């Protein structure tokens, strides 16, 4: 979370590999990664920043990279201030 006052926090920029943001460069505020959410489709993808500086999809325990947008899970991420939550932009933005 952010605001305009005080020292700028560094952003973590990397290219996304896989999922709906494949090939897109994204800048986020937390070094762990982010959750990409398509609320209309009810789907979510968890990206984690790897050592190469790329955001890679994280698989769940069953090898799936796309997960249903479970409200409880989403709230957990929202309440965990180590992740950003981005809206998947079907129009091509981010």
């Amino acid at each position, binding site marked *: *979370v952010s*605001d305009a006052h005080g020292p700028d*926090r560094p952003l973590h920029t990397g290219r996304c590999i896989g999922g709906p943001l494949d090939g897109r460069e994204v800048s986020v505020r937390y070094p762990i990664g982010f959750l990409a959410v398509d609320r209309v489709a009810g789907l979510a993808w968890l990206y984690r920043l790897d050592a190469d500086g790329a955001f890679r999809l994280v698989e769940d325990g069953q090898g799936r990279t796309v997960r249903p947008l479970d409200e409880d899970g989403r709230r957990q991420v929202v309440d965990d201030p180590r992740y950003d*939550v*981005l809206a998947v932009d079907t129009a091509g933005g*981010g």
Partner: protein
Amino acid sequence: MAYAPQALRWLAAGWEAAIGSAVLSGIVGDAAHVYGYHRAAAELPGSDYSRQMVGDRDGDGIDRWAADAIDISMSTTDMILVTRRLHASWRDPHDPRLDSWREVIGTLDGRTVIYMDCQTGKAGTADRSHLWHIHAGGLRRHAHDMAAMRAMLSIVVGQTYAQHAATSGIPATREDDVILLAEGPDGTLYCCDGVVSRPVEAAHRVDILHLARTGALRTAAPTGTPDPREWRSESGVWIRLGWSARVFGPPLSERVPVPVTLSDADRDAIAARLPVPPSAAAIASALVDHLRRPHTVPVPEPTPQ
């Protein structure tokens, strides 16, 4: 540790319901976040910028452990749409819906970031993460204020202030302190309060417009799309065209009392032209008859000493 007030969660749910791509990104800041409204006042030094304004300070009725900011992520299209709505409200001195908020950050074009200070009116910028999320930080004493949340949501969904006011019970205009700036055919500017019109001297015109622009003087504005035959904007202030004494009230200078001496004939002539309700006329007639009758005043008997 800071917590997320229910009022802000309510706002997030409403925002998500109204805007297809919107998704709550966060309310409470992380430990590395060392300043601002995403942290509780109790976690921050007294020198923090988010503890300085009236409404932000200890003693202003704040919840010292509440975070009072929200981040909502959206598609680029929706970011631009909602930021433009917020920007329009922020710029409108007659729209008080952001009065309980300190700051809003977003993007008007998908490429640059705009910071809007809702208390000082100053604009600035912030980091590029605001290309994909809108940040809104409230004055701390409004962290649980549902009126503030409803006001914000009404902007987000695209309501005008008048529409919001109509559904929230708030007077759309404060009739007692809103004036109408109107311009006569000769270019004279008038401040009209519904009763009289005060002509503005040419030398003071710029001052009046400045006061109106900054909100120090609350002036009326058109609702909906203004008709260019009726309204024009000057220096960001709306001016009603086509002033006339009959419609907007006579110029104040015509109402300055001038002492005059009336003869009885003048009084009778004026009285004869005044419409007098029958009941009032009857009372006056009876009173005159009474006064014209000879009166005797009883004299008390002297009291023996």
